[in-house]
């Protein structure tokens, strides 16, 4: 067991800490920074509930050690809304009932924004969204409304 010092930016705020080198990014975010919106649903990088953005790319935060993140820019679900003003993707999930229990939701929304950004300027189809969401598991919705939300959210993002 060894410790490492890291400095990074989370949701625009500078964060410095000394962490056990075994600490995963997701545990760092939840337990050290106390941002508990990023969730853990499995131990094997299947579920995607811990999806965040690292330097603008969506990534499952259980696949990185916190000590790998020196100097990185991290965005979590808490970094999207401005006050009560939801991000267009969050608004689309609400409008299209893309969530039920809400546990996979932060990862879904972060993943969905990643999809929208990746396909910027191109029309998103149901097939593309289902393929791109394959790494995010939801047990409540059957994905039907999530797919609709992602398509609508991406449209709103490109319009905005």
């Amino acid at each position: 067991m060894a410790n490492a010092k890291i400095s990074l930016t989370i949701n625009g705020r500078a964060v410095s800490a000394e962490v056990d080198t075994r600490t995963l990014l997701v545990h760092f975010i939840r337990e050290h920074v106390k941002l508990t919106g990023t969730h853990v649903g499995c131990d094997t990088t299947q579920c995607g509930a811990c999806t965040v953005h690292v330097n603008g790319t969506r990534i499952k935060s259980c696949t990185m050690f916190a000590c790998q993140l020196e100097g990185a820019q991290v965005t979590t679900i808490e970094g999207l809304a401005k006050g009560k003003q939801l991000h267009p993707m969050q608004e689309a999930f609400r409008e299209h009932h893309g969530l039920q229990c809400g546990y996979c939701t932060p990862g879904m929304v972060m993943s969905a924004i990643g999809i929208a950004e990746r396909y910027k300027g191109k029309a998103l189809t149901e097939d593309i969204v289902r393929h791109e969401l394959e790494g995010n598991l939801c047990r409540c919705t059957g994905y039907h409304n999530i797919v609709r939300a992602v398509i609508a959210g991406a449209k709103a993002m490109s319009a905005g």
Partner: protein
Amino acid sequence: MYVGQPIRRREDFRFLTGRGTFVDDVQLTQPILHAAFVRSPHAHARIKAIRTDAARKMPGVHTVLTGADWLKAGYGEAEGVWPVNDRSGKPARTVNRPFICVDNMVRCVGEIVAMVVADDRHQALDACEAIEVDYEALPANVVTAKALDKGTPLVHPKFGTNEVLESYHGNPEVVEAGFKKAHHITKLEVPTNRVTASPIEPRAYMGHYDVMNDRYTVWTTAQAPHIVRQYFTKSLRIDEHKLRVIAPDVGGGFGMKLYHYPEEPLALWGAIVTEHPVKWTGTRSECLMGDTHARDHYTVGEMAFDKDGKILAMRFKTLAAFGAYESQWQASITNAYHFTMLSLAYDIPGIFTEVKGVYTNCTPVDAYRGAGRPETVYQVERLIENGAKEMGMDPFVLREKNAIRPEKIPYTTAIGITYDSGDPPELFRKMRVLAKYDALREEQKKLHAQGICMGIGICGFFDMAGAGPVKMMNDLGAKIGCYDVASVRVHPSGKVTVFAGSHSHGQAHATTWTQIAADRLGIDIEEIDLVEGDTDRVPFGIGTWGSRSLSTAGMAVVAACDRVIEKAKKLAAHMLECAPSDLVIENGQFIVKGTDKKIAFAEVTNAAYHSGDRPKGLEIGLEETAFYDPTDCTYPSAVHLCVVIVDPETGRVTLRDYFAVDDVGRVINPMVFEGQVHGGCAQGIGQALMEECAYDPSSGQYLSGTFMDYAIPHSTDIPSFGIESHTTLTPSNPLGAKGGGESGTIGAPACIANGVIDAIWHLGVRQISQPMTPKKIWHALQSAKAGR
């Protein structure tokens, strides 16, 4: 009117912005210690020794506890809330699931042998590694179908058998006569696979003991917090008034989060011993082996038809797996929910079933969304499908022919349950149009001619939802009263807090309960908030399960609101100098009918708390509590249809379309209701095609310990759904609402299975057990080919 509108969910903001509070998110001012567990790696073993000395000396470790300590503390058991009731009169052979191994025998993989409490999770896990347990591995019994065979290892040798109970249901004389005069008989082996609910939030518990005030608090991933509090009176022997149970946001439950799992009392025990809050959050592997499993019935059945395809009778023999112990609600499946619904949507004169509960060296089985009815629908619908095909009849037409006619409803089935409302022929008619059934059959002919294996699956059923009334459920074995509770607190300002004994873990009660209350009270929905999930705030409750919350807690909201209005009208009438019966409530005002005289709701509510000028005898304040005992269960019904394409080269199934026509009576929020159907269908599709809690039959080792091995559906496995409703109101509650939560998991396994068989029937395949994986389908195709 709010009821009936697709109001967007009021709880969404916190979930969408990461501000939900799940158990693992709860922060306290004191440091929280972490529990970790040493679990049995064997399905069946004798423990020769446990050495904990090294672990106790590890950094950060506060305590190490074993079964010996549990016995020393004098704690109790996880007693069933739905105890086994053997109908033949013989005593059932009940062994409750232990919290921690106390008799040096482990009987399934994952059973807890020791607990470590340490400053952080890593330290607790490191210390678990340092605990040495000497096991003597014993032969295991993990195959349900063979559980009663001679020579099968006994899970509890003291009984001399693996049988837990035996029960019989139906009218055997009518069945006998039906088979005697049958024109055609279809026989099948129709087992249902062992699956598990797998909500994305793992189970998690945190216990806290406030020594100075002698008060306990438990934060738990639970669906029924007051029932959890009751469990603790038996396990840690804590009196209800000393214990607060909080089930905050819970990330899906599906029935699986109803039980008093070992880690729940153990976390609080750790807190009592260390005098610090102690938390455990399950890893996915711990959950996949420790969460209750479900289904796992081995059933053989036969069905008798007359020459026109009318079903005369059917009979079944079922071995229902209990796992290594009896979980708290397990007998509700075998003794209440499975056999009762065997008639499905059909008018069947003769039904007989024999059910034997059996112990195996597997994780205990308990209710998971559908609880018994997915098995029922699967076993009956597979026989109907094959029977129709063997007789050369269109399976859709054969079902329509047997569907219960609306004029026969209320209809009492051969099992003795009475469906109070519904119109199955209309559900089939709507499905025919929605799915364009006739065109599908034409398309199928063309595709089969091109070598493309397209199949159409169908099923139709009734569900028994809304557990209650208390007496009926007592008679079916429940030791808990199946009613529910709501309090409506009107504040002086006219704003309202509703407290309900239900618990939303995805079902949107903060929206739907306030829709109901807003209509009932005649005020804006934004003026009402909901509180659930806290035994110190909510008077009582039986919780959310079995598609019951709307027809019990929802109706308690109705009843409490009505009492509030009755009282408020007396005061308003006094203030307006009219009779209470002259008043109507609209848009937050009491209006004297036919006049322009009115008074604001808030003015009346303020007077209720602060005015001395009120009718004689009218009590101050405005708050009402209703304990609502429904007059009957509710009987929602549905018809499902799917279209699948099977690749004969690889055995892979592509699910092209999935349709459902549901009758759930009055719908409070159609958006929420459709979401329930979507999610349930996806889970049922998972059971049909990919999910299985698998055990190695020779070693008993558990093989489904991660989401790489236990396959829940991904977005690419599920199609978009076509959902329609048909509404017949139930007379059993004031809104005419029936349960809408379980149709998907109940119908989809049978529907998909029928579709896959329909796709490859012409290649000689007659039955494939679930999950219908590519490998199994490919083998079935090869066997059929070789047999010809």
